[in-house]
């Protein structure tokens, strides 16, 4: 077994990989939250439930319609995004002018309803979803065994995250989004249909969670509480990164996955709490978050 200065490299790299994979999901979910928060100024508590919905949608699509993994990767985010569009239009918009506490409670309610529905229909024990044939097996690296599907998770989520970042920071569409985040009233006066932009943005942020759900189905067990478990951590990550920063959400998501992985290797007892510890420290030192702007 390979060791370096008393460290078991095999174990260390294994945990780093797990950390990177968790971090990929954190990044996708917190990115969606950050996009939605930026334009709508609401905290979407349903993001975790929608991630769970994405995983179930992939499972059900395969069971009942014979839609495989690759098709699900495209179809499920579209369907989930459409649900997001309807949710924004008919649930969130009517209370958009009320205190943000209402929309927070509303999305929390949606999360509970979704989770309750799926628990009722499928029970709380997890269902399994097979890894697609093309990504079965793995590669033997000098210090670790790298399963292909896990490598795919990291690559695919990086592509989606960086692509989203590029779209928001470097394109005209993104300029509309950034400007709308700063001053929606002026964007309306310039002739931009801001309500439509808000609806589509919410749909896109939610679709990211749906995409993460499909990606997660083959590695985590598909269960009704998978969303609520991860969401608590994702909220801590959003607080660490700073609300509303797109790049910050991605970097913090991946970074915290790695921190968690390293902790699992060096001091496993703290691995479930280390992110919250980081959150407390960040809040004490830089309350707006690592990438947030001071108010």
């Amino acid at each position: 077994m390979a060791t370096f200065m008393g460290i078991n490299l095999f174990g260390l790299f294994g945990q780093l990989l797990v950390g990177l994979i968790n971090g990929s999901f954190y990044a996708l979910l917190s990115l969606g939250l950050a996009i939605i928060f930026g334009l709508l100024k609401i905290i979407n508590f349903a993001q975790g439930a929608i991630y769970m919905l994405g995983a179930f949608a992939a499972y059900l699509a395969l069971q009942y319609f014979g839609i495989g993994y690759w098709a699900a990767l495209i179809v499920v985010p579209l369907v989930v995004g459409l649900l997001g569009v309807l949710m924004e239009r008919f649930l969130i918009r009517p209370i958009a002018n009320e205190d943000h506490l209402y929309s927070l409670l509303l999305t929390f309610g949606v999360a509970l309803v979704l989770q309750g529905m799926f628990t009722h229909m499928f029970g709380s024990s997890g269902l399994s979803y097979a890894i697609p044939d093309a990504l079965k097996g793995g590669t033997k690296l000098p210090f670790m065994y790298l399963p292909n599907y896990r490598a795919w998770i990291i690559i695919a989520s990086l592509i989606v995250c960086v692509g989203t970042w590029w779209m928001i920071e470097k394109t005209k569409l993104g300029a509309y989004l950034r400007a709308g985040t700063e001053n929606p009233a002026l964007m309306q006066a310039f002739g931009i249909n801001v309500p439509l932009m808000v609806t589509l943005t919410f749909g896109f942020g939610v679709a990211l969670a749906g995409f993460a759900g499909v990606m997660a189905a083959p590695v985590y067990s598909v269960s009704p509480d998978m969303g609520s478990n991860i969401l608590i951590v994702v909220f801590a990550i959003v607080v660490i990164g700073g609300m509303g920063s797109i790049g910050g959400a991605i970097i913090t998501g991946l970074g915290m996955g790695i921190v968690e992985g390293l902790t699992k290797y060096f001091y496993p007892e703290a691995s479930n709490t280390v992110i919250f510890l980081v959150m407390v420290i960040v809040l004490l030192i830089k309350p707006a978050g690592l990438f947030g702007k001071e108010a």
Partner: protein
Amino acid sequence: MSTTRPEKIRINDLHAFYGESHILHGIDMSIGQGELVTLLGRNGAGRSTTLKAIMSMVGRRTGSIVINGTETIDMPAHKIAHLGMGFCPEERGIFSSLNVEENLMLPPAVRSDGVSVEEIYEMFPNLYERRYSQGTRLSGGEQQMLALARILRTGANILLLDEITEGLAPVIVQKLAEVLMQLKGRGLTILLVEQNFRFAAPIADRHYVMEHGHIVEEVHAHELEAKTELLNTYLGV
């Protein structure tokens, strides 16, 4: 004067509200094509609110606002710009998350014959030099130029400008006066909210004086001398 030109803006009995507060109490005004009209008055008289009410940026508005012959009082806010309107808010509204060029290119074209980007950079060379700087890193004067240039590029031919000289050095104020005269020469219609009467007097065709959400006086350019005293009482200088 306005009767001989095609009417670009006609406002009748305009009331505007922010929540429970009733800000405008029945405004009537008419602006003809190519006119430069100012709204004078003290702070809080309702001048900025009048511009915002025209752009439907207030809580609620009633009455009638006809732009280019189209009634807009029930129109969604994002459709109003497409009647050829360009709005420059008092706080300038330069976006800090966008660079200068992104700010310039941001508003969609509302008519086909906007000022070209080349022409804008010719008119405001500073903007060209600093086109990749963050929008809010510009000096106050440059930001004002950018806010103005931004709506000229869209082809808007009715401009609503709110306090564009506020806090700017005299040489920049002079430059803005030149630009406005140039635009007026091109046939653009301009409604200007202005505190700086010395800036407005020589370039405007008419002035409306506002107080407590009403229009209390209309002064044509040729009546300025005769009504100086009256204006001084209203503006409280």
